[in-house]
């Protein structure tokens, strides 16, 4: 058994950088400058960046050294979009070719990650061969990995060598008894180890890896899968501990478990959290010095494009095989595109004078605040294909960004998938119409902002109590949400808390 107190970090003191350096206790949205420089164009680390910059995962790491009850290594479906799923496994030379092809076609690309479908550090030769060559051919691209942490300590020095300054560790627990309910086995020192003993080793390795990365100045994001009844309450403790050890961002994701995925949790009927339960947990873990990632799309291990879109199909091995790419020219285009995006963001900030970092967005609504009246908060859904503007037709939206407008300001809450996890046709899954699925996933929202919307979905949304609004097409999301909120408050719609509050339960 691990003594849990041994995992408690020492209280951060002036000399201990973990958790104390650069904290701004009175301004939750302020990010220290040295971190801001590392995250400003990383879509997974910065909420703002995810509107502008694209990423790709290369599926070079098929092997895994542990088993998680939410993962099934047998499953691969082109209609599925969730972690661990890929269409085409790549060898390092193929992955490099794919990265260069995507980097030439999508100049917004800033990040290449290895996230599986197994664990990148259970495939160290393949992972590091890919990174070595990319560092040489495309030095402008940021490299990152997402790992379960078991093999992390032994590879930290190698990671530091490769200019990898973003690492994600999936940490679901600190208590081996809880771990034994999530991880049936690990492969460790040439043996398969099961049960509490396995979880104990995994947890120790994860915590050690986190400490080693922080000591080397590598930014660490912690992913946790919220599994109701198993680790949901416990994740508050996880969040506190990893924050104190110096993790920069915590991403609590909902368990994905359906019987058709063939996972232990899917088949045992383990429930996933509702969006409301997830959001409540995220809020209770959020603090002045722990940022919550709320824009995660739980993407595939071979996803390509902006978060929320997947252009992987355009870059299959077959399609890129004969492409001739001028690497230097492609890199120049990416560098120019980054400069353009940064200028655009700076111009936008100058205009609206909002805080530079939007990881937690709080835009003051001074006009509302000066009035003595109090208004309730409102959830609004937004259709956007990037750039932080309302620029997408309702019918083309694969997902909606959900913002909460209140007198305190405007805050990004989560992304809601229009098609949930499956994009198959009506014969593949529930015989529910697309609009019905969208209405379910937007439950709790009172407004949907989009560039345009058809007559039929308009009526159905209205009937469901969600007001469609196409009047703010091509406007900045925050400005539009703010102005709709102001209109609603001015027309008396927000005067009192409704007796029967809508829930976000899907």
């Amino acid at each position, binding site marked *: 058994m691990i003594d849990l107190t041994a995992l408690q970090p020492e209280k951060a003191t002036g000399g201990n950088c973990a958790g104390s350096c650069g904290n701004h206790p009175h301004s939750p949205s302020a990010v220290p400058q040295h971190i801001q420089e590392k995250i400003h164009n990383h879509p997974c680390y910065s909420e703002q960046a995810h509107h502008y910059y694209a990423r790709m995962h290369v599926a070079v790491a*098929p*092997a*895994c*050294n542990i*088993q998680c*009850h939410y993962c099934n*290594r*047998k499953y691969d479906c082109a209609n599925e979009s969730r972690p661990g799923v890929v269409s085409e*496994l790549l060898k390092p030379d193929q992955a490099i070719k794919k990265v260069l092809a995507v980097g030439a076609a999508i100049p917004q690309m800033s990040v290449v990650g290895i996230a599986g479908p*197994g664990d990148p550090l*259970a*495939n160290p*030769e393949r992972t590091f061969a890919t990174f070595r060559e990319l560092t040489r051919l495309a030095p402008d691209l940021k490299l990152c990995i997402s790992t379960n942490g078991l093999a992390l300590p032994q590879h930290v020095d190698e990671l530091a060598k490769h200019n990898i300054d973003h690492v994600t560790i999936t940490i679901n627990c600190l208590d081996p008894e809880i771990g034994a309910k999530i991880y*049936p*086995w690990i*492969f460790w020192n*040439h*043996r*398969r180890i099961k049960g509490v003993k396995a979880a104990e080793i995994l947890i120790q390795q994860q915590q050690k890896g986190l400490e080693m990365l922080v000591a080397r100045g590598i930014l660490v994001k912690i992913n946790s899968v919220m599994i109701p009844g198993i680790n949901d309450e416990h994740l508050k403790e996880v969040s506190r501990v990893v924050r104190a050890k110096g993790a920069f961002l915590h991403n609590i994701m909902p368990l994905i478990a359906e019987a058709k995925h*063939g996972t*232990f949790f899917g*088949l045992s009927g383990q429930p996933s959290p509702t969006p409301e339960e997830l959001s409540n947990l995220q809020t209770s873990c959020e603090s002045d010095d722990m940022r919550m990632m709320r824009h995660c799309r739980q993407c595939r291990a071979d996803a390509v494009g902006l978060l929320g879109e997947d252009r992987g199909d355009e870059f299959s091995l077959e399609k890129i095989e004969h492409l001739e790419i001028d690497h230097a020219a492609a890199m120049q285009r990416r560098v120019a595109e980054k400069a353009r995006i940064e200028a655009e963001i700076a111009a936008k900030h100058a205009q609206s004078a909002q805080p530079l970092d939007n990881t937690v967005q709080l835009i003051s609504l001074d006009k509302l605040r000066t009035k003595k009246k109090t208004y309730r908060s409102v959830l609004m859904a937004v259709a956007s294909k990037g750039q932080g503007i309302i620029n997408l037709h309702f019918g083309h939206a694969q997902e909606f960004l959900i913002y909460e407008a209140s007198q305190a300001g405007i805050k990004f809450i989560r992304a809601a998938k229009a098609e949930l996890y499956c994009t198959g046709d009506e014969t593949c899954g529930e015989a529910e119409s697309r609009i019905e699925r969208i209405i379910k996933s937007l439950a709790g929202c009172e407004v949907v902002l989009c560039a345009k919307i058809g007559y039929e979905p308009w009526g159905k949304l209205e009937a469901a109590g969600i007001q469609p609004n196409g009047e703010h097409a091509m406007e900045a999301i925050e400005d539009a949400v703010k102005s709709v909120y102001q209109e609603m408050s001015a027309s008396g719609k927000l005067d009192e808390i409704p007796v029967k509050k809508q829930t976000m339960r899907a």
Partner: protein
Amino acid sequence: MALKIIELCTNCWACQPLCPTSAIYEAKPHFLIDALKCTECDGDFADPQCASICPIEGAILNSAGKAWNPPGSLTGITI
């Protein structure tokens, strides 16, 4: 004396680099074990390495033709 990989293999590559006698090789439609090279890790490790990391129940058979990891033994899924 040799282990065998059968069609349940998902080609995840986990076993191949662990084999002390390089008996495992990539093949279509799935990885295979060279029976002449396989020692079942005798003399190298306490347990056969391929069977100790393989995530798929039933994908590796022992020399008697029985699943090294029978149904339910790895995933806990018994239905």
